[in-house]
């Protein structure tokens, strides 16, 4: 074996070691539940509305302000691979609301041009009296590809007395 061959042997050992470690980096689904205090009312006099002090002040957003208000609940995306550009998907996106609140899910590309404006079709909603769980996708039937770099947020219309308690996303790698 030549000196060059031995140098290559050492480099090969390095490459093999790197590959095995890199291959072990799983691309797992990320399940995240957000308290609705992440959400914020927008629009005129939005600051006049405050978090509900009666039991869910730390976790929910309650419109006590008289008129209906729009709220934005940002979703922090944690699972995507910017190096390969592989799109991920939402296996689930849901938001827990009450009092006639309605929400849509906005997914906007990194350059701000255009957007997916997604509504839930009602199929997988769960309602318990005044409280409702709006589910936008399910893992086994409908998923939505999310381009790398796109941002996502719920956009809700919260009537007076309405509330947002929490929201949840499950984002994973494409099969």
């Amino acid at each position: 074996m030549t000196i060059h061959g031995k140098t290559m042997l050492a480099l090969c050992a390095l490459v093999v070691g790197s590959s095995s470690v890199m291959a072990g980096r799983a691309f797992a689904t990320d399940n995240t539940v957000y308290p609705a205090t992440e959400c914020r009312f927008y629009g005129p006099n939005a600051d006049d509305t405050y978090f509900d002090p009666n039991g869910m002040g730390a976790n929910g957003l309650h419109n006590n302000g008289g008129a209906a208000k729009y709220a934005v609940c940002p979703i922090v995306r944690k699972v995507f691979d910017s190096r390969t550009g592989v799109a991920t998907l939402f296996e689930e996106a849901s938001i827990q609301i009450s009092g006639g609140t309605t929400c849509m899910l906005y997914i906007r590309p990194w350059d701000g041009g255009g957007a997916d404006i997604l509504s839930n079709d009602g199929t997988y909603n769960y309602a318990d009296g005044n409280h409702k769980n709006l589910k936008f996708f399910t893992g086994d039937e409908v998923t939505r590809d999310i381009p790398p770099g796109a941002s996502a947020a719920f956009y809700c219309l919260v009537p007076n007395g309405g509330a947002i308690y929490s929201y949840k996303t499950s984002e994973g790698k494409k099969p």
Partner: protein
Amino acid sequence: MKAWHALILFAGVALGLMLAPRASVPARATDHDAEDMTSRETDVAASAHAASPKQDLATNAALAKILERLDRLEAQRDESGAARAATAHREADRPEASLLDGAVSRRLHTAMFERALAAEPRDSAWARQTETEINEVLRSDELAAGNKVTRMECKKTLCKLEIEHATQAAADLLPMSLPMSLTSMGSAWYVQNDEHGQLSSLFYFARKGTQLPQMPREELAAAAQP
């Protein structure tokens, strides 16, 4: 096997063992690794050299060759590193290195929705009802000012809507208010255009209970290829 052969083999194996645990460092750290490798290989060779009191001239010559080769590798690394740095700088101008160009994506999506709409038969009752609802919503106080419908077409599960805007504020309000106001429509895709100084929006709405078409992944992947 000559003594220096064993020496070099030992140095190579030791180098491999030393560097393997560092493989979890991201690929971007390769330059540093190469630098470490260079110094460590030299150190290992030098310490082995010092530990052997009976080294001969051939070993010295071999070590000299190794050092020359390392010098050449370092020079090559510096050149390729500079090239990579230049490329990385250009890539860093974009938020995501391998992202599909936004304009291309919008063109592909528009073409996909056009094909889907063209392929649909018209459900006259639903289409008429939905077009009426869209017109009513657009005549509401909130949306009437600054918006003018230039085209509206509903088929069986999809509607296309083109609207010209007098102001940016009117254009920005529409995608936030219109989808939530349409009871017969579900999800939507929209894009805002500013061609020839005329601000406009293009919407495709899916009928409530139906899914908005998704761009085939293969088509997006193909378009993303450099």
